Each structure stands twice: as structure tokens, then as C-alpha cells.
């Protein structure tokens, strides 16, 4: 084959799926069952995503329902015709429509163990998951402060705990799961602080009662943590983490329903680690970069791409499922994946409407409708609390990559950094290697508060490649100078 010097080899497939969690893997398996050529990319070494994360490095893993579900998914994927490219970090996605503009197309580039991989397909499924939200407080950048989701990675994949005496704080279902996981791993948990006002939320919500197995597990986590002697503090948040070089003390205090500090006694705990998380935000970088239409949903984790009943975004051929399209949890993610798999299969011309496939569509849609109340109840617990953001102290660092404090952000806004992109130029906020993933949600909220505008008016940072920081060395690979396709010289 004759190659144009310096240009990449681009393989064509029918479907590219980014993200091998419950949503992406399910979509890939479904499309492949329909005879489509599917490539599934994920930066992790195995499928399962965050919720069904695979153990690594010889760690046998835990025996719980998540571990079993993850193993089952991995076995099904293994048995399918899906071409899985694990350990691949997608850094570029561009539209690559047919020259006449009639057929949509996408080109996806990923850096993997063997260099850059370039793929092209008429359909792209995004199942990119979520980022953890940590609303800043004094001491949140100290060594020993770990995210709730990060702690679950340590526990599930490596069987490791972040400390010996660990305070757990934040909100959402992960809070109790992590607390119980730490206790089970033999870690001392002196306190568990939930921003929510009542600890027994799991038992009280009618939506939760629709999922008795999960309600029972939640109650079990709660009981395990409480029985171990942990102080269970509902309606409490972290006031500050203290220590000269790492966490030594965590101070908790009461908060209102919006997460704002209430006057009331502060309670201090000696600890060598603090596990803290305030819900999840959508990882919607790809839809942002491709300029799909988004809307702001506080309930579903922030900015979410608009999708139709087939989970297709406003960009034809581009599908968004799982937590990356709105924080709705595993059950909805799996169902959405199945739904997209069926849809791709039908579009390939295999539709047997009214027959088996037709009933499959109906069945999935019915299950999706049934799953929504529970999912919404969980999402509500994890939504960003405006009062908590409003409470951030002026000298607290908000952008940890570039060390930008709240006061610097407020000052820049007052000096007319009136757009979220201009704020970057004024402060370098969001310009570090996390690419604004950590601070974006908080900074946008701060700007909305300061300007007294809705979040929709503040908007979000322009999406730019790379989707993840990618090393120049990996990207350039081995090359000859003569192979670089240097354009013709600029005029003299």
C-alpha cells in the first residue's frame, strides 16, 4: 500500500465506541451482535468503567455484586466480536463527513501501547462517564485528601486504603459505600459526614423502595459504618483539613440544605486521610468539542448534551450514553447502551420491526422508564449545592493546577472577565493539566453567583483537544524528518 508520507493510517469501521463502562460495553456488544464492525476504546486496561472497575496487578478483587457484574460484562465482551482497544487514550475527535456532506463521519485518534491509532466511522458512541466533584475547602489540596471515587478505585482495583484513620465526608451513594468498604478493609473511620440532612434517606425515599435490594445494601453500609464506632453526622460538611504537610486533623460542622455552613459546634477528628466527594459532573468534553447542543441540568451533574429518544445528539451519528450524558447511574447506563446497540443494528438495515427486535426496543424503553425515579433520587443527592460554593473562603485555592484562589477569580470577574473563557486569560484558571475538569463546575458557579446570572448564561469552557493530556513523545512516535508533511513556506 502506498502511504502518503507523514499521514496516519486510518482504519474504517462501522461504529466507534469511546468508554467501556456499562453503557459503552453494552452498546458495543449490541452493535456487534448485529454484525457491525465495532471498535471499543478505553484508557483503562479492562472494561467495567468506574462502577464495575476491574482489579489490577494480581489483586484478586472483592466478592460483591459489583465485582460479579463487572466480571460478567467482561466475559460477554470477550465472547463478542467487538474489537476492544484498552489502554488507549483518545485525544482527538473530529467530524469527518463525506465530501458531499450527506453521510456523517468521525475520525478518532488515540494514543496506545503501539503509538497513535486512527479510526474512522459513520457512527460514534460516547460513553465517557463522569468526573468527581470536590467543592474546595481550606486544606483540600493537602496530601491525604482523596476523592470518594478515587478511594473506590484504590479499594476495588488494588485493595488499598488511603490511610489508617480516615474521615469520610460528602454526599451521594458513594459516601456510605466507601465508608463501609474502608471499615471492612480494617481501616478506622472516626466519622462519616453527610451533607444531606438525614442519614436514613435510603430508607425514607419511596423511589428507593422500588429497588429493595439496593435499599438493603445502603442500610447495610450504614449499619456497618455505625457499628464500627464511626460518628454518623448528617447535615455536616468539612470546614477544613489541617496539618503542616499532610492531613492530621479534619474539622466538621453543620450545614444547611444548600451546603452553606450553619452556626453550631465544630467537631474535630484526628485522621491521616480525608475521603471527600460532592457528587459527579458529566465528562462531556467530546460533545462540547464537536459543538453539539447542551443544556444545563443541576440534577444530572451540570452540562449535558441534548439527545433524542435514540440517545443521538444534535450532531447526526453521534450518540451519548451513560453518566457522560447526565449522571443517572449504572442501571440507566446499561439500558441506554442496549438501546443504542439496537438502534445501530436497526439502522444498518437489519430492522425486524414488529418482530423480536421491535419488542426488544419496547422492553428496553419500558425498563428505562421504570429505572428513572430511583436514578433521579440518587442524582438529587449528588447535585451541586449552590450554598456550598458560595461559602468558599476568599483565600481558598479553587484551581489547583494553577493555584488560583476564589479571591483572584472574583477580582477578575469584577474587572470585567465577563466570560468564562476570558476568565482563563485573566487568571490562568483551568489552564493546567486537568484542563478544567476539577475546577470547571465550581468556577462556573462562582461566576454565576458573582454576576447574578443563571448558569446557562455563564456557559462552559470551549472544548479543545487533547481530550486528555497526551505526551508529545507518545504522540510523535518514531519518525523521519523527511516524513513530516511540512506545508509550503510562508511568503517572504
Amino acid at each position: 500500500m502506498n502511504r502518503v508520507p507523514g499521514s496516519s493510517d486510518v482504519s474504517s469501521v462501522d461504529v466507534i465506541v469511546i468508554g467501556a463502562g456499562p453503557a459503552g460495553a453494552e452498546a458495543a456488544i449490541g452493535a456487534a451482535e448485529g454484525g457491525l464492525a465495532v471498535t471499543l476504546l478505553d484508557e483503562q486496561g479492562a472494561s467495567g468503567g468506574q462502577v464495575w472497575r476491574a482489579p489490577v496487578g494480581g489483586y484478586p478483587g472483592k466478592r460483591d455484586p459489583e465485582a460479579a457484574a463487572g466480571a460478567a460484562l467482561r466475559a460477554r465482551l470477550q465472547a463478542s466480536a467487538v474489537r476492544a482497544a484498552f489502554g488507549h487514550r483518545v485525544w482527538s475527535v473530529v467530524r469527518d463527513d463525506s465530501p458531499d456532506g450527506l453521510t456523517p463521519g468521525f475520525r478518532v485518534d488515540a494514543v496506545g501501547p503501539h503509538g497513535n491509532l486512527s479510526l474512522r466511522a459513520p457512527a460514534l458512541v460516547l460513553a465517557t462517564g463522569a468526573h468527581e466533584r470536590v467543592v474546595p475547602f481550606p486544606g483540600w489540596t493537602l496530601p491525604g485528601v482523596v476523592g470518594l471515587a478515587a478511594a473506590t478505585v484504590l479499594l476495588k482495583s488494588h485493595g488499598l486504603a488511603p490511610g489508617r484513620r480516615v474521615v469520610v465526608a460528602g454526599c451521594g451513594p458513594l459516601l456510605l459505600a466507601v465508608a463501609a468498604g474502608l471499615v471492612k478493609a480494617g481501616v478506622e473511620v472516626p466519622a462519616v459526614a453527610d451533607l444531606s440532612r438525614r442519614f436514613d434517606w435510603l430508607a425514607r425515599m419511596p423511589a428507593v423502595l422500588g429497588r429493595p435490594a439496593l435499599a438493603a445494601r445502603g442500610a447495610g453500609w450504614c449499619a456497618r459504618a455505625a457499628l464500627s464506632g464511626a460518628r454518623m453526622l448528617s447535615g455536616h460538611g468539612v470546614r477544613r483539613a489541617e496539618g503542616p504537610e499532610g492531613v492530621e486533623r479534619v474539622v466538621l460542622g453543620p450545614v444547611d440544605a444548600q451546603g452553606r455552613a450553619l452556626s453550631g459546634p465544630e467537631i474535630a477528628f484526628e485522621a491521616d486521610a480525608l475521603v471527600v466527594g460532592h457528587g459527579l459532573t458529566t465528562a462531556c468534553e467530546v460533545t462540547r468539542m464537536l459543538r453539539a447542543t447542551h443544556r444545563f441540568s443541576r440534577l444530572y451533574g451540570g452540562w449535558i448534551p441534548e439527545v433524542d429518544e435514540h440517545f443521538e445528539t444534535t450532531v447526526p451519528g453521534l450518540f451519548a450514553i451513560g453518566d457522560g450524558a447526565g449522571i443517572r447511574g449504572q442501571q440507566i447506563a446499561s439500558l441506554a447502551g442496549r438501546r443504542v446497540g439496537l438502534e445501530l443494528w436497526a439502522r444498518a438495515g437489519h430492522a425486524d420491526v414488529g418482530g423480536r427486535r421491535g419488542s426488544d426496543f419496547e422492553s428496553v424503553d419500558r425498563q428505562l422508564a421504570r429505572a428513572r425515579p430511583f436514578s433521579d433520587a440518587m442524582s438529587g443527592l449528588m447535585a451541586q449545592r449552590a450554598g456550598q460554593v458560595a461559602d468558599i473562603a476568599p483565600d481558598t485555592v479553587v484551581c489547583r493546577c494553577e493555584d488560583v484562589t476564589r479571591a483572584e477569580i472574583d477580582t477578575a470577574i469584577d474587572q470585567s472577565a465577563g466570560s468564562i473563557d476570558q476568565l482563563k486569560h485573566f487568571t490562568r484558571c483551568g489552564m493546567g493539566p486537568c484542563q478544567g475538569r476539577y475546577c470547571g463546575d465550581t468556577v462556573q458557579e462562582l461566576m454565576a453567583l458573582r454576576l447574578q446570572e443563571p448558569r446557562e448564561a455563564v456557559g462552559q469552557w470551549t472544548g479543545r483537544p487533547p481530550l486528555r493530556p497526551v505526551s508529545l513523545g507518545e504522540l510523535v512516535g518514531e519518525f523521519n524528518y523527511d516524513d513530516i508533511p511540512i506545508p509550503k513556506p510562508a511568503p517572504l
Partner: protein
Amino acid sequence: MSRAFDLVVVGGGIHGCTAALFAARGGLSVALIERGALCREASGVNAGTLTMQMTRVALIPYALRAHAMWADAPNWLGHDVGVVVCDGLSLAFTEHEEALLADRAGKRREAGAPIELITADQAKQVEPGLGPGVRLAGYCKVDGFANAYLTGVAFRKALLEAGVTLMERTEASGIDPLGGGYAVKTTTGAVRGRKLLIAGGVWIEPMLGWLGVRLPIKVLVNQLVVTERQRPVMRTVLGIASGLLSLKQYPHGTTVIGGGWQGEGDRDRGGVALLPDRLIGNVRLACHAIPALAEARIARAWAGLEAETADALPAVGPIPGHPDAYVCGSVHSGYTSGLYIARLLADRILDREPELPLFPIDRLLAVTETA
């Protein structure tokens, strides 16, 4: 009806801002209209290179004076734009590039740029971070870079201090010639001025169209890359003979890689997409020049629009057929020279004789319909 200004400037990039600043300091009442925020387009997102070795020969005298202005920004602008004056190298890796470099450096030298040709060994002494394969280098002490994203912050303060009426987030949608002046139509009403300056970057083509003047402007979509912070790996501003690479490491450790590799986009949509093959090509060139860059990760890539006239020389001067109306734009490698050229135009607007000639647009007009 709104008040009338002596001068209304449409466009808040470095051209519009500099002209507005010097016009205001010269005693005119000035309004500056900008669709977004100051220096958020080409003036704020370019690579910040201040170099003689990528400047067109005809612009060298201007670029030298502009370089001095950049270096002295804290004094006349009053605010820091992160200018670093440092050695500059233009590299040749092939026989063809060697010939190109010798020819181009010679012509720039004749125009006044203090460029000398040095061997690979000498280049390695100037820039210890260089990789192998250099055959010849152009060496210039009058080079450097600014932190382009700080330009808007600095100008905003200076313009306010000079008493300029700043109208940011105000989009101009047309211009009506009045008897003895102009009314610029905006989203918040008309802004009247005795004199008018159009300084809208790639958008000067549609803006001049409001006056019935057709000046074709080509839109370049330049891709740029910045790395995360890294240990010091270079101390110069680097390019190659063909001009298709610009490279410098900022004091805080990030390195900006540019050179005008083209992405996808246009005047209406901005920079829409960065093309992966070209991004890789650009980055390969950078790693070939400075191998230690391979240790860093790319933090971000973006695209900025650059305006180019048919002869790739500036469009700076009076607008034919429209008394007291001026245009300033399309200054090739405009970030280096733009300050000085816009200041020359401010002199002209203030009825002073500019120190060097402007670049009147009569030569470029496809069709002129005088009002």
C-alpha cells in the same frame, strides 16, 4: 441621540486598542466597540512570538520599532504583558532549508534585521536544548515573545486610564456615513464619531463592505499547542527556515508550539477543528528541534484566525472615498509589528505625519463604489 466622539474604533484587538490608546492620549475623545472582550481573538490567542526571522522583509523596519515598544510595554502601556526579550534561532535541517535560510536571512539582514548565520555548533551554544540534525541557523538577538493572553488585561487598564469609552460585548452591525462623520450601528444603539477606524481583524472584509468597499481578506486558521509545565528545556525563541514552526518556553514552564499549520474553520464559525495529522506534524517538528519536549504532555491545542491580504502585506491607511475613515489590519505576523503600525495610523488620525509610510489599501481593492 448618543453623544458624538472624535473617533470611533470598531474592533478591540491590538490594532484597535493601540490606535485608540494613542489617539486618546493625543487629545481625541475615543469610543472602542468590541463584539466580545478585548484581545480575545487573534491578538489574545496567537503564539506571542516577537521575531524578525518570521517577519516579512518589507515589515522589518516596522517590526524592529515594534519590538522596542513590546520590550518597553510597562513604561508606555503601563502594564506587563509578560514580554521576554531573548535570542532567536531559525533552523535549517535539510539542504533545501539551508538554501532557503541563507536567502531569507540575507534579505532580512539587508532590510535591517540583525540576523547572522551561524554553524550547528554555534547554534548549540546559543540553545543547548537543540537536537541533532541542524545544518545552519539564523541567529538574531532582537527576538523574544509576549504572553498573548495577557494583552487584553493590560490594554483594558491602559485604555480606561486614558479615558477611552470601552464598549465591550457590543456588536457592530453596520456603518452609516453622516455629513461629516459616521454612525456605527450596534446592538445597543448607534455610536457617532467624527472619524472612524475599522480594526476588525479577519472581519474587516464585511466591515468595509458596510461602506461599499470590497477588500478580499483570506482567513488563515492557525493551529497552536501548549504543553503542561516542564523543567526548563530551552532558552530561545525558535523557528525553522520555512517559517512553519514557532517555539518558546514561558518562564512558568509551559511551551507554546505554533507555526501556522492550518486547522478547519472560517470567519463565521471561528476555529472549528484541529486536524490530527497536522497537529502531529507540527509537534514532530517541535520535538525534532527540542527533543526534551517529548517528556511533556500537551495540555491544550486551539486555533486562531489570521487575516491575509492578496499580497500578504498590511491593510493600513485611509479608506478611499470616505473622508476621515481608516482601516488597520492584516499585518502579516501582525503581533510583532502590529503595535507600531497601529501607532503610526494613530499619528495619521491625529493629523501628524507618520514616521514611516502606511500601507494604503488602494492597491488591494477589487471594486470600489464610493458613496
